[in-house]
């Protein structure tokens, strides 16, 4: 086959253009976050970096919102793990009537429009006093975390052959011992990475807390919007707000590299 140098050159050019498109906004965010309010307007790449924006943002309640998000997302994932791991196991191991329907039902929670959930929940939460509380948000977040965990973990459980369990049973292990000492260690890498991924998804949630959280509890995704709405043009602080929220996720993403495909596709792709 005839291959000039143009074809690979074109290929790399396309990839570089895409990489610029994908990564430059992040770089720009970091750059702006270090610029003083004056230099934001007058400079492009050459400027004298300052930490003033970071100081200004941390002086506000931003850290509290950060903590709120951490509590809500973290607890939501923990609840989902506690309840979802057994459910995933049951969906993987047992044959029972309506199994696939049930599994699809759980998946369909993921597809339900968020506003549809939020409209009625808003009123019910006000009646039963869960509006603007951590507990209420943790509960609603289950709709985001649970389907993902169950579907991904189901795949990991299916990968373990039944013989392992039967052998353990022959050795006199009780069912809970099998679960804790044999199965859990086997799925641990998958469990940890999918829990981290669900954490990222929970962290990113916006619609639920926008409506179901008020002033007492406010995750950082909602709080960040204030920097948009305010008429003062502190673009540097806006960049800090974005960077502080976004960069932890980038680090988490690096940690779960190997299991990412599987998690993102709800276990459909065993990458």
């Amino acid at each position, binding site marked *: 086959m005839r291959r000039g140098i143009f074809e690979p050159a074109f290929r790399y050019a396309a990839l570089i253009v895409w990489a610029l498109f994908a990564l430059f906004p*992040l770089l720009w965010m970091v750059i702006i976050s270090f610029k003083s309010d004056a230099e934001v307007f007058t400079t492009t790449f050459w400027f004298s970096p300052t930490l003033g924006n970071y100081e200004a943002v941390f002086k506000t309640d931003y850290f509290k919102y950060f903590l709120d998000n951490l509590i809500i997302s973290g607890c939501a994932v923990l609840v989902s793990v506690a309840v979802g791991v057994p459910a995933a196991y049951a*969906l993987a191991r047992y044959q029972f009537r309506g199994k696939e329907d049930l599994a699809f039902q759980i998946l369909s929670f993921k597809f339900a429009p968020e506003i549809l959930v939020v*409209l009625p929940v808003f009123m019910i939460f006000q009646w039963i006093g869960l509006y603007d509380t951590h507990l209420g948000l943790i509960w609603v977040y289950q*709709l985001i975390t649970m389907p993902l965990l169950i579907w991904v973990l189901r795949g990991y459980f299916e990968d373990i052959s039944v013989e392992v369990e039967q052998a353990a049973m022959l050795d006199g292990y009780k069912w809970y011992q099998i679960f804790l000492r044999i199965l859990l260690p086997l799925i641990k890498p998958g469990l940890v990475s999918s829990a981290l991924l669900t954490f990222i998804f929970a962290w990113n949630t916006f619609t639920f807390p926008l409506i179901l959280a008020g002033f007492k509890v406010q995750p950082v995704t909602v709080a960040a919007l204030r920097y948009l709405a305010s008429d003062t043009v502190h673009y540097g602080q806006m960049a800090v707000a974005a960077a502080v929220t*976004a960069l932890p996720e980038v680090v988490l993403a690096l940690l779960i590299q190997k299991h990412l495909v599987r998690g993102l596709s709800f276990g459909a792709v065993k990458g």
Partner: protein
Amino acid sequence: MSADIDMAHYSRKPFWDRALPYLIIAPALLLTIGILVPFVTAIYYSLTNFSFLRNTYRFIWFRNWTRMFASGEFWDSVWDSAGMTFWSPAFAVILGLAIGMVYAGKSSRSAWTALIFAFLFAWLHNWIVAFGNGEFWHAAWVTAKYAFWSTGMEMALGLGIGLLICKRTNWFTSTLRVVLVFPLMIAPVIATLIWQLMTNTSVGILEKFLNLFGVFGFPWAASQTTALFTAVLIDVWVNTPFIIVLVVAGINSLPKSPFEAAQVDGASAWFTFKNLTMPMLKPFLYIALIFRLMAAMQEYAIIYALTKGGPGDTLMNLSLTAYNKGFYYKRFAEGVPYILFLWLIIFFISKKLVANWLQVQKTASGR
């Protein structure tokens, strides 16, 4: 023989054994269904005139629904609609043709199906313009446009970039595989914030970049003509990595031997792509399509953070319209039909796509 009867007797599991899996799943279901109970109340409220402005409300049956689909004069003018002309914007025809072609391709019907769909869409569009409740049909139209463009662009770009990355393995492509995922991990709201920093006319780098080409003051989200483009751009930035990741995983999982065989036989790159790569990648692309389309149809965060549906009503899709009616105008019950309608559409499309995906997966794995 009696042994058979005995076997039949013993193969029936005791009650607790049968109930066990349900019991294990029950907590998970209770937690999630506990949240979905409101869904039933949503249907109930859609039949009332509940509003945060009044203390009482009453049952008004389907009035919220009929009001959503058609304007006040609708019922008077049903009979006039027979004489409509077949004019419509090109997009309605193209969308109709596309859907028709997919439909025709699936069920191996003739190309006439596509044409019929095109006309149907054109006619429907015209009919809606004349008689529908403008707000609802506008919202549905925005939803369709947003879903079409963002999902379409993401699929095309994701497939392209994924294929390019997999062509060679060296330090450059392996680094890209890792770092290109970053935008996907960032909250859509935060991504919108970042893009506001990029597109801002006074501090944004894109303005300076466009100035090089002699374009000054590109309005981005501030203008009716470019707002949708800007929103789709942000969506593409966030979500294309998802498709890239799936495509890369798909290509890595392909068996080597058919490709070697094709190479030995001197098949062209296009032939290999069309007859080997694509069919085997199809299950992966289906997964990508399902997840992206369902999310794009109900996109809320990006649009809300970008313009809150503006300028004017340019970006008011069904999710935002329902939110606005329910919370901004406080007419709760009037907003519910909009989102229930969207859910119905999403439910049916997702069910159909999941069925297709299972089918394609079977074909691809040669079963």
